[in-house]
């Protein structure tokens, strides 16, 4: 699937994460800001990539501002951002969820 427009999900509150997806042509790039990057940076990126993969997105730039979100929050915010970026908020892909 191709990202058609930039889309944002999440807030900057503690224990939340803000995910900004933008169209790109050179694969998946992730720019991660997080206070727990040292301990959980790899896991955060892996969770996001898994979601992108399940939507078959191959080219996207992801800007992540993490405020210590748990894994399920990161997953939920990424799914929301993807649905918005793909303009399919009215047709959730249940098999992905």
């Amino acid at each position, binding site marked *: 699937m191709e990202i058609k427009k930039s889309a944002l999900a999440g807030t900057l509150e*503690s224990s939340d994460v803000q995910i900004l997806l933008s169209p790109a042509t050179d694969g998946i790039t992730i720019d991660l800001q997080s206070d*727990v990057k040292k301990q*959980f940076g790899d896991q955060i990126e892996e969770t996001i990539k898994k979601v992108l993969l399940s939507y078959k997105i191959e080219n996207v730039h992801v800007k992540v501002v993490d405020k210590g979100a748990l894994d399920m929050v990161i997953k939920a915010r990424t799914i929301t951002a993807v649905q918005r970026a793909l303009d399919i908020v009215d047709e959730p892909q249940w098999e992905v969820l």
Partner: protein
Amino acid sequence: MKNKINRNIPDEIMREQGYTGFDSVEFGNPDIQRVAPKVTATTGNSKVVASLAEVIEKTLHNGMTISFHHHFREGDYVFNQVMRLIIDNGYQNLTLAPSSLTNVMNDIVVEAIDKGVVTNITSSGMRGSLGDAVSHGALANPVIFRSHGNRARAIETGAIKIDVAFLGVPNADEMGNANGMDGKAAFGSLGYALMDAQYADKVVLITDSIKPYPNTPASIKQTQVDYVVEIDAVGNPDKIGSGATRFTKDPKELKIAKTVNDVIINSPYFKDGFSFQTGSGGAALAVTRFLRQAMLDKHIKASFALGGITKPTIDLLEEGLVAKVMDVQDFDKGAAESMHLNKNQQEIDASWYADPANKGAMVDKLDVAILSALELDTKFNVNVMSGSDGVIRGAIGGHQDAATAKLTIISAPLVRGRIATIVNDVTTVVTPGDSVDVVVTEVGIAINPKRQDLMTALRDLPGVPVYTIEELQQMAVQKVGTAKPLEFTDKVVALIEYRDGSLIDVIHEVKD
């Protein structure tokens, strides 16, 4: 070598600095030789000096040890003014030995380190830009962290030999009689500074209010003071203590506080004449409120409350639920202001409060201590010094000292954000698990297996599930996942002394 709790202490540090490894929380009854300060006799001429610059020139030489107290906390004007002059006058190789370092002191200490003005530091703690700089190897020599009781011990035995103490006070007379409870920048108890006044070779009082002679009550006495300097303002009253401390509304903190209260009132120590110490965190304040109700309900009164004092504790004193407040520092305005009104709010120095090497400290008589933790491990060891990223951001304070109480309760959430509070091994051991009795989290409690008596007393409390500490650790991991281990270099940037002066752990430089 590895010390008793399996922490690796580099041999060269043990050898070069003459340390022994931590072995036991028992101090025993050793004979200890104290040191005495050098006294320059004077017969009552005024000690008032015109300026800070002049008094620094009179007293300070390269290589000396200087000290400050942190009773002005984030409202301190004295530290920055004195350090500015010291830096600008090109002094070198000083040892900085304050009772602690607050955030307002960070930037100027970092500058002093960069310029070679300060080459050694001993403190209760540090945080912010200073903690960051030290954790990244800014100092060649490791910082030595000591608890408030241990600092008193180290000063008495000469391990810390203070050449010049620069002590800010909200009032003083021309001879140096001073207290902390009156004046624009009043902060209450002078507890930590009393050690410096008693043991430093030169004692400089810095005040913004010269009182008629003789100024009483005199916590610091003219017999101890060499010079008095008047400056415009010693502190910002709005930042010295937090204003009215608010009661937490955080449901997690309230749950923890309520459970702490359940643990206390169902322990064998909750009886008439018991004593307690609480910290200043949200949960600790809430505990004070729950405890008040329990004391009213069961007609139980406390003999004393100890340590850093807040307004809710003063309320208990005024209500007659606490007989005495033994006050080494005041965390808020309410507690500071009440000191000269309440004769049962006794100012105590750091030695009386918590020093193991004297003829009896208040903490020896303490029944219940409620303490916090950045991290706690399955051996019940507590870290209050290094953050989740390995960077120094905390203070020992009275943690090790109060933890020797008969019932030491550590209150901590299972996780903070994505960081587990209960882990397999804490990054830095500050307080050994041997002195910790009960851990209280929002999901339930864990009891140190060596306290089977408490297990019997607390096993069947309604609404207070008892887990093993390993079970709590597992719950935390399930929530947040397994963290990648932090990376450090071989360089040691800080030493953590136990309260008896042995080495309990070291902190390494973080690898970025």
